[in-house]
């Protein structure tokens, strides 16, 4: 890109050239891949060895200065390298603080060593080594027609001599031998299975299973969860630490005022204004649990899907396609919140065989 920059008055500009085009006013392009000079030799501090060769030698004074700089950088790299070894010995690891000190010393010295080494080499290349302006010719990739004819001729001759066309039996048995080997990779695809079966359609929730607080494992008495605007993250009793089960079964429990509910919520599945929704977003399965008690919106932090907690967790914004499934809940004899049954529809994101589970549920009802 710097090739096309203006460097001064128009007369001094290096003409813009595309690689492979003939050199304007230069020597003819007789040597393929040869070096062709394109730099105007007007600069005072550079010495072009021979006009037209494209080799530019640096100014000796500048090169001497650069040499000192490079030597200094290499010296720093040397000291930092020694420092690395010294810090390995000096800073012993053990507890968190001493390990942090050791890491800092080792990382710092190694960074310094490699950085000064790299800087030194770059300065060396840029300010001490001579510069070349290279033009690489681009040629057609194809061989010439005579060679191509010859190859075609040899191929046809070889095919004839092999008797692939003449000997039917050989040809057919060879194809037969290749067929099962071709099918083998398809058979191996079976190892991607087994298919999940109905596992995606069910969670561990079942009738009478208690809802317990995530993090403490306490069952929840409905009368205790009595502040409108409250929310709790809830897991099934007995599965508090079974992450496979929790990946589908985790709930958010929301307390609303009974008059806040809209038609989307199944009131038979609530208890005294307490409603339980799946915490797994129906978009791609993030935990959707940002809850604003002023608007009753449940927000998924991943892609901003927003659900209305008062209206059966209906989607009101965002990419989610379906409401968060509602878990039927009730209370047991001691007043603790329990599940009435499992979710009626699969929780979480869509999958291939899911179908319209909501419509199936409506059909049964």
């Amino acid at each position: 890109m710097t090739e096309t920059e203006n460097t001064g008055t128009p007369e001094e500009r290096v003409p813009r050239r595309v690689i492979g085009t003939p050199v304007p006013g230069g020597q003819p392009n007789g040597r393929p891949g040869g070096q062709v000079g394109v730099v105007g030799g007007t600069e005072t501090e550079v010495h072009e060895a021979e006009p037209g060769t494209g080799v530019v030698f640096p100014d000796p004074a500048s090169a001497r200065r650069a040499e000192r700089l490079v030597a200094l950088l290499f010296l720093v790299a040397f000291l930092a390298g020694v420092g690395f070894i010294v810090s390995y010995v000096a800073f012993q690891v053990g507890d968190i603080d001493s390990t942090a000190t050791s890491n800092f010393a080792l990382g710092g010295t190694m960074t310094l060593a490699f950085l000064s080494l790299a800087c030194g080499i770059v300065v060396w290349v840029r300010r001490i080594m001579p510069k070349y302006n290279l033009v690489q010719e681009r040629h057609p990739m194809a061989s010439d027609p005579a060679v191509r004819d010859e190859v075609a001729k040899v191929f046809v001759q070889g095919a004839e001599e092999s008797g692939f066309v003449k000997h039917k039996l050989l040809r057919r048995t060879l194809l037969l031998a290749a067929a099962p080997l071709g099918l083998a990779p398809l058979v191996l695809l079976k190892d991607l299975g087994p298919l999940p079966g109905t596992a995606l359609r069910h969670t561990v929730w079942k009738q009478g299973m208690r809802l317990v607080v995530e993090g403490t494992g306490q069952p929840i008495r409905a009368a205790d969860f009595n502040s409108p605007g409250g929310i709790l993250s809830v897991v099934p009793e007995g599965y508090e630490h079974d992450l496979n089960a929790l990946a589908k079964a985790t709930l958010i429990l929301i307390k609303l005022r009974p008059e806040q509910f809209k038609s989307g919520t199944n009131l038979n599945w609530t208890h005294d204004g307490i409603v339980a929704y799946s915490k797994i977003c129906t978009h791609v399965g993030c935990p959707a649990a940002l809850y604003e008690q002023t608007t009753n919106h449940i927000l998924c932090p991943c892609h901003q899907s927003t659900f209305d907690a008062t209206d059966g967790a209906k989607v009101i914004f965002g990419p989610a396609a379906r409401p968060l499934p509602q878990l039927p809940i009730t209370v047991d004899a001691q007043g603790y919140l329990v599940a009435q049954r499992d979710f009626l529809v699969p929780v979480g994101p869509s999958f291939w065989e899911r179908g319209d589970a909501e419509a199936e549920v409506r059909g049964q009802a």
Partner: protein
Amino acid sequence: MNSITARRRHPLARYAVLLLALCLVGGAYALLSPTGDRADAAIASGKNDDVANGKALFDVNCSSCHGLNAQGIPGRGPSLIGVGAASVDFQVSSGRMPAANSEGPQAPRKNPPEWVDEKAIDDLAAYIQSLGGGPTRPTADQVDPAKGDAAKGGELFRANCIQCHNWAGAGGALTGGKYAPNLNESTPTQIYEAMITGPQAMPVFNDSTITPEQKRDMIAYIVKIREQTDPGGSGLGRIGPVTEGLVGWIAGIGLLILAAIWITAKKRSKKRAKA
């Protein structure tokens, strides 16, 4: 000026111009963006620690939105009957109320006006508490982080709080311009009061489902996290992979690109050529 003109076609000039423009835009935004300045007139608070004094303070500072009897004014402010002393302490001590000068969808944390001191909050709280009860303020013992179990609190915090407030309490965005505030500026008392009262959009975590001991554990966790040093030198707001990625891409890769341009750039000599 001449030197600028001479260098305007320097290969790094375009980057310099871009950087300058970004700085100008950022600086202009910082200067012009709305800042909540507090213009509340300071009024002398009375000497009597009683409900009457709280009522007087309320009439002057709060009643324009919440109504003369704290019954609320539709469209301006909610009823304060039954919100309790804990709400008053949280809202007033964190500067969220009075919210008259707050712009936007959220009443932000800010410095309280001059009339707010411990006595004024006590009186106001006593007045509001007298109207319809509600959650009371926690004792010093209930919010002492030293007495909480940070490990247990962390478990509860991660289950119930981090979706909005971030795992390190740094806060995060909500809908419609609202946001969950940074917890690292809040006092333990304010954190406790927020949990039991559910200020603004925050849900309520009442004492019967999350016990006071468990709340103290969570406070211990928040305070503990706050005291941790960032191993990398800067936590970048501790708001997670977005900022870290942004810094990595812009600062890290940007530097690498500039270095690559410098390494491969053709050496220029226009100054000498002109001279």
